[in-house]
């Protein structure tokens, strides 16, 4: 694979990883605090994407950027306070049933309201177009519009969609913001401590349950950001929730249940595995190899999961005994 193709596959891997990461961070945050695997998290992503379409059609995309995450925060809070909290003392199977059931209800409701097909999510005018990457000493025709970024190693020049690059940037900002919140604020201190020992934190006068409800809202808000910026890329249909829940859940398991760093690393790992398999499939000339790689493309994330979990059942950064 030449460097140009490698570079584009790398960016595609990052972009896929960015969406996985945004959904998986919320999943792992909820698991780490409340001990619940929220199988409705993909549905939250989907609600966000639909809300973003509606808001950007009626008011403009800029409004969607602010309204959708806030809306999802409330939806998350409502979901936790209204439904999921009643299941904390119940067996894991009950928790899975209730969150999975909720996901199906949301999926069917969206199908009922908006139909089973994709609904188009138009990019805002400022978000369309391509970014041009050019190598050292390359001559780029003046006529080509858009952003230009120098990239040593590139031969001549090549393009990558601006929106997908933006998605990577937004995801990085969210990750950084979450890190700062958890590591450098009083709220973050309480959440980190609460993940370790909720009973002792309660004995210090802190209403841990309430803080964890806010964490749930926050996780939903992050899914909201993913829906706004990821919607135009992943498409907006009633099946997209489950389609992204599954790899995101794998990300959480591979990274180690409850580990934020693990989720981040695993998201990029799965994104890369997926992007490069597709990239090699496109390059393959031998028909058998091409067929093999095309098939592999469908299952590569599962394959990575199987290999990682065989070698390290607790996941990359998981704690012993949490999920083993």
């Amino acid at each position, binding site marked *: 694979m030449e460097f140009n193709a490698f570079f584009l596959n790398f960016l595609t891997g990052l972009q896929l990883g960015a969406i996985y990461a945004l959904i998986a961070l919320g999943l792992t945050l909820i698991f780490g605090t409340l001990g619940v695997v929220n199988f409705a998290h993909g549905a939250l992503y989907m609600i966000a994407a639909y809300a973003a379409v509606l808001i950007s059609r009626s008011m403009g995309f800029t409004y969607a950027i602010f309204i959708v995450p806030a809306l999802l925060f409330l939806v998350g809070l409502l979901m936790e306070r209204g439904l999921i909290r009643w299941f904390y003392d119940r067996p894991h199977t009950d928790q899975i049933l209730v969150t999975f059931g909720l996901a199906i209800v949301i999926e069917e409701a969206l199908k009922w309201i908006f139909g089973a097909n994709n609904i188009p999510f138009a990019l805002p005018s400022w978000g369309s177009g391509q970014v041009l990457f050019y190598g050292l000493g390359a001559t780029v025709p003046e006529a080509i519009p858009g952003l230009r970024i120098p990239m040593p190693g590139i031969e001549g020049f090549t393009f990558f969609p601006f929106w997908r690059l933006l998605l990577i940037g937004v995801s990085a900002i969210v990750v950084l913001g979450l890190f700062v919140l958890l590591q450098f604020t009083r709220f973050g201190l*309480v959440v980190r*401590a609460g993940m370790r*020992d909720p009973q002792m934190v309660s004995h*210090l006068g*802190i209403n841990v349950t309430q803080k964890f409800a806010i964490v749930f809202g926050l996780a939903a808000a992050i899914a909201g950001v993913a829906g706004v910026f990821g919607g135009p890329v992943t498409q907006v249909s009633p099946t997209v929730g489950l389609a992204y829940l599954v790899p995101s859940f794998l990300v959480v398991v591979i990274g180690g249940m409850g580990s934020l760093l693990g989720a981040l690393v695993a998201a990029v790992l799965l994104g890369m595995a997926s992007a490069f398999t597709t990239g090699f499939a496109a390059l393959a000339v031998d028909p058998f190899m091409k067929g093999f790689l095309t098939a592999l493309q469908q299952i590569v994330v599962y394959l990575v999961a199987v290999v990682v979990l065989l070698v390290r059942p607790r996941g990359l950064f998981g704690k012993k005994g949490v999920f083993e």
Partner: protein
Amino acid sequence: MSAVMEAERPAAAPAGEAFVRLKDVESYYGESYIVQGVTFDVKEGEIVALLGRNGAGKTSTLKTIARAHEPHLTAGEIWLGDQAVHKMRDWQAARAGIQLVPEDRRIIGGLTVEENLILAQTAEPVGWPVDRIYQLFPRLGERRRQEATTMSGGEQQMLAVGRALARDIKLLLLDEPYEGLAPTIVEEIEKAMFEIKGLGITTIIVEQNAVAALRIADSAVILDMGSVAYRGTAKEVLDNEELRNEYLAI
């Protein structure tokens, strides 16, 4: 029932007005009935040694008073002044001024010494500032940036006591503060205990080492099989050999 118990039975509260009152307190771990109707009073500023054999229910009683998730209170009343602790959740009891220092210390991992103290000062009412805690335990000040669970057992016990003092305490519940510690460390912590005693904080102290507990305590409660077998002064327990043989094995 032993003759000793019958003779000493009138489990009279010490003279003076009760500040902490436990009335027929019962609690369960799941289906297991553990605290089986505990009744005793504590005066304001009094230090009570809660004694009894291993498994008598001392830890469970403290946890019940602090309204821990487990064991859960099913019957009886717990009063702190005029506040009904039996109607509170764990964090509400803590805000009312009840501070548990658990036997396994429960220092929070992944946090520095100072973060553990700051965490304790998150909810009102807040007690000592961090610097005053470092004055009491200089070792903690030296290790303020160290991950707290990497410290020695004695240092962690100091942090557990310091963390309690970081809150404004009305009732301190100490569960085996000297357990498993070297004699020099015990001395250091005992010194802090006497300093706390000087502040007049009402305290219930559980200790396997009954003699050590009775050195600091004004009075004693002896638990047996989840209920109160004896209530009296510290001196009475120390002087009564039969009582010590029966319930304390000292």
